[in-house]
């Protein structure tokens, strides 16, 4: 087996290379030639192929994602924006919070447990690399039909993987979503979010500068797991006696990650690193090229010094391996000894693998022979950019014309009651506690609100009670009907959820899950959704801090519903002021805030009762969302409400059911004059919430809503053990609870 050195590549310009098998297009391969002035070596080809992949380069999405920067609202809270491992937001009192949501969709379908587990591992390292202590995780999940046999394979594995990894890291899982829809049958969406906290001065960036500084790889040994394209390379370029093709899914070791977290935080405390980067997708190729590219440009790496789990790995494989639980740090020579001591304390293997040079090339050597000599920016930041064609699909008009208003509605109160029970016990609306009870929500002792509350909230300072809240939302059905509006509705719901708990929304992260960018219809959905999200963020004043794009979520010709998931981060000055969702005090008055219109397109009712998707999603009014949020935040701060719950899928009845069950109290509800009870209960008009107001605060609260111009209708009172829709039907809590809580265990346990 001969080594394909830079010298050798220069001497053998016509050697055949497996660029097509590695997923490169002819023009991309030609461009590599042009950049290098020769053919790439095997190692260089491997690096370019993974770094220029859709996953790493965002080549199809980049032209659209630029709007998040171009339309970014002025926001002094944003300390680090898009482009780093994660964005960082100022939350006051000297604290900075970093958060990001990412996808691990494809691996989780192939191997649910490890796919989901390493999804958590990856996002946690991103947050750690910013200099923060990870303090919470959340998982927005989407699966195929709840009763499909394969869902019973995928979901329990994903949930066990999230629990098995996250629980071992000591990170409370404080929220997320679980959604079922047949469109995700072959493409479950496993998104993972992590939040981290640090002081402003602790922010770290991924850059390598200062010639002579050492590059240290620390954490797990490098193995042959997670090598995608490179196994192709190895078997094509070299003889077939090397290691067999490895599984493309990485295998996680949460214990190693926990050590890595504590070790890294101790290293930060002693201010020992200049730049730091985690190893995720594309492994060392990514870490070395990104560190060098973002820094002064020059780096020399002795690849044969990398500690291995399998000594037979080729240099290409080492460069591409996605073995988990590894980090790469740039350290001044004088601090290396102390760095190593801390790693030794935590039983973490650390190795100097190279150093920053004053050149502008990334140079990688294998036993003294040079195998990589590239300008790092061309690998990491100047990959190809595509202007993919996009076009509004011809079926969009017919879909929107198929109005949900035509669907038969319950004719009697008995039928209405029956449909209410059917909706609140449907898989999407039913209690998810069978799932979330497999996650540790208490560890770290700072969990103020956790699922199923509107947002997860953690305390970040024990003395001042400063806290942050995060919610994630997405609605693929709405987005299918209208991608621009659907993305804004996801944003609006997440924003509303944060405000409902009393926190002030500050910034967002997003995970954009779509089908194939090579399908113009999907690209149109993507273009519309990103435009909607960027416009929405501008209007709400919440900048995008970062996120992730997951494309190719489709089976054959059929794409998933376009599913932008939006995570909103908010801050609350005193977590004592938080507003929970539970109706817990009899006699509190229930107010419905916002306007209820007849909006049933994409609704839970249309799905559960009629298996229908058509028409238009609820109208978006972001000005109204801002006003509602201001009222909810003020009410929380001034103690005017005892409970608040956002209205979204399932409408008012879903919110009432959840808040009543949470508090163990019933409610007497009066349908307002002029409103059809069916529409009142099931409409999904946006910009609404239901709140419980103590009688002593009624006047003050009513005055505030009146003065600010927010419609607030008194619809009832917390009372008894029955949800009584007066004059229509009664639903005992015990019956409701049984229905709401039985569904998921019956399907999955």
């Amino acid at each position, binding site marked *: 087996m001969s080594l394909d050195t830079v010298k050798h590549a220069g001497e053998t310009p016509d050697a055949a290379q497996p660029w097509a098998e590695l997923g490169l297009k002819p023009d991309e391969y030609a461009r590599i030639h042009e950049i290098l002035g020769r053919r790439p070596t095997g190692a260089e080809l491997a690096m370019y192929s993974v770094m220029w992949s859709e996953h790493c380069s965002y080549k199809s999405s980049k032209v659209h994602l630029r709007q998040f920067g171009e339309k970014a609202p002025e926001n002094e809270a944003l300390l680090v924006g898009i482009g780093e491992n994660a964005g960082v937001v100022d939350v006051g009192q000297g604290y900075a919070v970093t958060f990001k949501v990412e996808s691990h969709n494809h691996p989780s379908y192939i191997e649910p447990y490890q796919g989901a587990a390493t999804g958590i591992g990856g996002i946690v390292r991103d947050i750690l690399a910013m200099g923060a202590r990870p303090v919470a995780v959340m998982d927005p999940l989407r699966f195929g039909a709840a009763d499909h046999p394969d869902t019973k394979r995928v979901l329990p594995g994903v949930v066990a993987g999230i629990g098995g990894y996250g629980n071992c890291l*000591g990170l409370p899982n404080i929220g997320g979503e679980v959604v079922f829809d047949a469109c995700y049958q072959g493409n479950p969406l496993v998104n993972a979010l992590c939040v981290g906290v640090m002081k402003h001065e602790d922010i770290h960036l991924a850059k390598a500068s200062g010639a002579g500084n050492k590059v240290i790889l620390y954490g797990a040994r490098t193995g042959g797991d997670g090598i995608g394209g490179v196994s192709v390379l190895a078997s094509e370029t070299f003889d077939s006696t090397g290691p067999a093709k490895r599984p493309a899914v990485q295998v996680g070791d949460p*214990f190693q990650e926990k050590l890595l977290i504590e070790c890294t935080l101790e290293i930060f405390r002693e201010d020992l690193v200049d730049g730091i980067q985690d190893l995720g997708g594309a492994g060392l190729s990514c870490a070395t090229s990104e560190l060098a590219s973002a820094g002064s440009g020059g780096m020399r790496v002795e690849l044969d010094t990398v500690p291995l789990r399998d000594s037979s790995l080729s240099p290409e494989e080492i460069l591409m391996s996605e073995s988990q639980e590894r980090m790469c740090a740039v350290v001044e020579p004088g601090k290396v000894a102390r760095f190593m001591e801390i790693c030794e304390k935590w039983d973490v293997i650390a190795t100097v693998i190279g150093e920053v040079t004053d050149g502008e090339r990334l140079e990688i050597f294998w036993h003294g022979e040079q195998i990589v000599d590239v300008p790092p920016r061309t690998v990491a930041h100047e990959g190809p950019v595509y202007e993919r064609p996009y076009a509004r699909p011809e079926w969009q008009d017919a879909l929107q014309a198929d109005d949900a208003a035509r669907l038969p509605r319950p004719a009697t109160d008995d039928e209405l009651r029956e449909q209410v029970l059917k909706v609140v016990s449907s898989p999407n609306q039913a209690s998810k506690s069978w799932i979330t009870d497999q996650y540790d929500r*208490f560890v770290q*002792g*700072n969990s*103020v609100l956790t699922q199923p509350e509107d947002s997860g909230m953690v305390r970040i300072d*024990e003395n001042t009670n400063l806290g942050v809240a995060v919610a994630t939302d997405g609605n693929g059905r709405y987005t299918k009907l209208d991608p621009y509006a659907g993305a804004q509705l996801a944003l609006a719901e997440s924003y509303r959820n944060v405000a409902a708990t009393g926190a002030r929304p500050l910034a967002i992260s997003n995970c954009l899950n779509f089908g194939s960018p090579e399908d113009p219809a999907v690209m149109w959905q993507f273009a519309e959704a990103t435009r909607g999200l960027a416009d929405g963020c501008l209007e709400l004043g919440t900048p995008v801090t970062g996120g992730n794009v997951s494309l190719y979520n489709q089976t054959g010709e059929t794409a998933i519903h376009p599913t932008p998931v939006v995570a909103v981060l908010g801050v609350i000055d005193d977590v004592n002021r938080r507003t929970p969702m539970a109706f817990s005090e009899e006699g509190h008055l229930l107010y419905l805030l916002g306007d209820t219109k007849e909006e049933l397109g994409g609704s839970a009712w249309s799905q559960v009762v009629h298996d229908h998707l058509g028409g238009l999603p609820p109208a978006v009014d972001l000005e109204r969302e801002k006003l509602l949020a201001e009222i909810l935040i003020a009410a929380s701060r001034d103690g005017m409400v005892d409970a608040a719950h956002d209205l979204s899928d399932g409408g008012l009845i879903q919110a009432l059911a959840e808040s009543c069950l949470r508090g163990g109290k019933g409610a007497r509800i009066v349908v307002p004059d002029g409103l059809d009870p069916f529409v009142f209960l099931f409409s999904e008009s946006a910009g609404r919430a239901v709140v419980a107001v103590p009688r002593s605060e009624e006047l003050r609260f009513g005055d505030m809503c009146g003065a600010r111009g927010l419609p607030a209708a008194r619809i009832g009172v917390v009372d008894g053990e029955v949800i009584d829709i007066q004059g229509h039907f009664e639903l005992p809590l015990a019956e409701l609870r049984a229905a709401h809580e039985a569904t998921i265990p019956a399907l999955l346990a």
Partner: protein
Amino acid sequence: MTARVGVITFPGTLDDRDTQRAVRIAGLEPVSLWHRDKDLKQVDAVILPGGFSYGDYLRAGAISRFSPVMEKVIEGAREGLPVLGICNGFQVLTESHLLPGAMLRNNHLHFICRDQKLRVENADTAWTSDYEAGQEISVPLKNIDGRYVADERTLDELEAEGRVAFRYLDGNPNGSLRDIAGITNAAGNVVGLMPHPEHAVEPLVGTGRTDGLGFFTSILKKLVNA
């Protein structure tokens, strides 16, 4: 002058900082102990917190039991040093043979996290004197290897000697024999349980209850009044 309570951190321990906070809230001074420590820094009591020490590899608690610090803990416990093992800490105590029995995987095979109702069966130990015998408390439970087992003779002995310290109420969450949630040694200085009292010490966080505070105030009274 208050008492000093050591909180051990093994590699993979998760609830060490939470436990230190609970110790502090109760008015005690937490002292951080590292698994490689060869002495206990003159602490008056020791808590082994929850987590997945050594990744629970081999068997929960099986590797930690051989840590240098555990030699001193075992020595101290035999001489009367108050020792509390919570969750993974309880597993370490059974592996160390300071307490009898063992924990197996939950009978439903899932990790379970919930607010768990318990009955305090023995309020005469170093860690439970601030409770009443028979008192019902709720504290979070969160584990995957929480099913307490022991042979019949041991179980009968524990019952006869009043060494079942806590029992699960309102449904056995994991198949533990005789609904046992926690036990004590004969002297009452070593107590282990699967639920997490350190997560129930502040009304603001977790389940909003403070039912777990009694563990820490019990040891405070014992140490400061002693």
